[in-house]
């Protein structure tokens, strides 16, 4: 994408149901060139949004999966000392040993900065890392530059990537971090939106099955003392399972029979509670 092309405008993707509010938030964030921080329950489509943006705007997607032990420099670049040492000893590689730059490999953020076109950079589950990592990373994303100390070179982003950051809200993020992001909290979808989402994934779904499954799903979500509530992902998998079963008929749901609860409830206690709540006959 060149500079003088019309401004990219995000309006949804083939596998993602987008509400207007979120669309305008994404567009504002892109216009302001600010990272967009997405919070919300697991399974509300935070990660999917980045995929949808990349697909819709036809930009390459670069995913940085944050790990708790991660250091910022790993996300920026890596200096491969071992290969260099090896080359200097045996001298049988094509690389020039005296050129340190040949041994610098870009990390995910580095790749996004040096890419030939504008990219979507997804920083997934930022809350796993400690606060120092978060603050330092935001400095880099703010300035759009970082230094490679070994070769004393400053990498400046050629195109400002569209940055999407997700957080499961396990920990609070620090104020300076929040100050540099736009923020949106994805609420759990309403039944109406949920039916749209299902339609996107299963265009040929039986109407009875969908109505029944969605109704049962929201009822199950309201069960008390369930530790991990089933989310969109689980519902989609559940429907997939129901459709795959040739013996299953949608009318069974109306009768209260809910097979494959294990797809919805992943923890054994939750599963036991769900089974107890829906009656023993649903056990197959």
């Amino acid at each position, binding site marked *: 994408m060149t500079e003088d092309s019309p401004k990219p405008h995000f309006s949804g993707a083939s596998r993602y149901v987008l509400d207007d509010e979120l669309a305008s*938030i994404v567009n504002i964030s892109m216009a302001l060139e600010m990272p967009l921080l997405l919070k919300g329950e697991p399974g509300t489509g935070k990660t999917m949004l980045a995929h949808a943006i990349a697909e819709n705007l036809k930009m390459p997607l670069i995913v940085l999966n944050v790990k708790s032990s991660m250091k910022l420099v790993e996300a920026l670049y890596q200096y491969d000392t071992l290969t260099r*040492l090896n080359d200097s000893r045996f001298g049988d590689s094509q690389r020039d040993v005296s050129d340190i730059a040949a041994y610098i490999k870009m990390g995910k953020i580095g790749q996004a900065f040096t890419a030939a076109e504008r990219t979507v950079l997804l920083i997934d589950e930022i809350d796993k890392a400690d606060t120092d990592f978060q603050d330092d990373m935001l400095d880099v994303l703010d300035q759009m530059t970082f230094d490679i100390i070994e070769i004393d070179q400053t990498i400046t982003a050629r195109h400002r990537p569209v940055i999407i950051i997700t957080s499961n809200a396990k920990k609070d993020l620090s104020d300076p971090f*929040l100050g540099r992001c736009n923020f949106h*909290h994805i609420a759990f979808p309403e039944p109406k939106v949920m039916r749209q989402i299902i339609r996107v994934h299963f265009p040929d779904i039986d109407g009875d099955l969908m109505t029944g499954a969605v109704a049962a799903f929201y009822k199950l979500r309201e069960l008390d003392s369930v530790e991990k509530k089933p989310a969109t992902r689980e519902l989609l998998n559940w429907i997939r399972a129901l459709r795959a079963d040739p013996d299953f008929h949608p009318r069974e749901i109306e009768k209260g029979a809910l097979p494959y609860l294990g797809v919805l409830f992943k923890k054994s206690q939750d599963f036991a509670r769900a089974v107890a709540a829906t009656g023993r006959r649903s056990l197959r």
Partner: protein
Amino acid sequence: MFIAFFYKLKEAGIPVSPTSFLRLQKALSTGLVASLNDFYTASRTILVKSERYFDLFDQVFAHHFEGAEMPAREGVDLDEAIQALLQEWLRDPQVLADVLGMEAAEIGKLSPEELIAYFKARLADQKGRHAGGSRWIGTGGTSPVGHSGYHPGGMRVGGVSRNKSAVKVAMDRRYRDYSHQGPLTQAMVGEALKRLRNLVPTGPKDQVNVAATIYQAMKNGGEIEIVFDRSLRDRLKVILAIDNGGWSMDPYIPVVQTVFDYARAQFKDLKTYFFHNTIYDVLWEDPARYRKPRRIDEFARYDPETRLIVVGDASMAPYELTAAEGSIHVEERSGRPSIERLAFLAETFRHCAWLNPMNARYWDYSQTVKAIGRIFPMFQLSLDGLEKAITHLMQK
């Protein structure tokens, strides 16, 4: 533009920053904001940084742009000790009546609001004349309610929920000045706990020590010998014992929760135990203090370098601490007074600290707090106290 709106948000208690306000102006100039709806979305995503404030934002927005009524703000900043005291008294009108020098029947006629106003007046009164009277502030030793299965019968001043709302109404913000520290946020706890670290090399040798490798290669006349190191990890062992029993800890639940959450995220080797009021023969691994007891004697086998952090208000009836059969739970009767058990723990783990969420100003009024303070170094569970506790825990 919209400066008044910005200040209204700030007044409502939403943390908004000037930088983000300027950014909103920039967003307005991009032409993406064409309607009030767009403005709502844009201003919320740019100004508000947590879903906790979404509701408040909606209210302010509706008020500013549509003239809706602003709901009254919640006032919840009563000094915790006073709040605990109040709630205790409200449970038993007779005690309250004794303390206020009124007839129980008279109290029954007062609304909770009036009661609190009266109480506050008496409190101010009392502060002037006998600061330090153990009758007034000491929940610990002299409290006649709650323990030993004594349940106040008869008349109550309102139900639980009414009491709560009354407490809320009474707490106008002038009480805020009493607490010198603001609320302890998770970030603050994090900053304080961060210094509690003990980095030691662990795990597989998978880090190349470049300097040592070059040195070895030189020594070998150019033959490369790669030197690996273990990576540095935080191997500090921490035992966290939390008093999660009884209403006396209730007001402190949020702050204790914060500490606990952060500790869980911060320490790889953290064991959490629970107890009620004080420690007898066992600590419990499950919060219900029912399924998984761990005998105190076994703790002697633990690494003595383990940091022991006890969180509790240390307030109870004195006999619970000193009597041989002190526990209020029948199944915990053991023949050894709790105070010996505490001393044993403090000896076993020389790096230990007791974090007390109760304001330090009230410690002197409670015998049990003083007694435990002689065994464990005691710190207030505030940012200040936490830092002192950490400094103490990291001493060699």
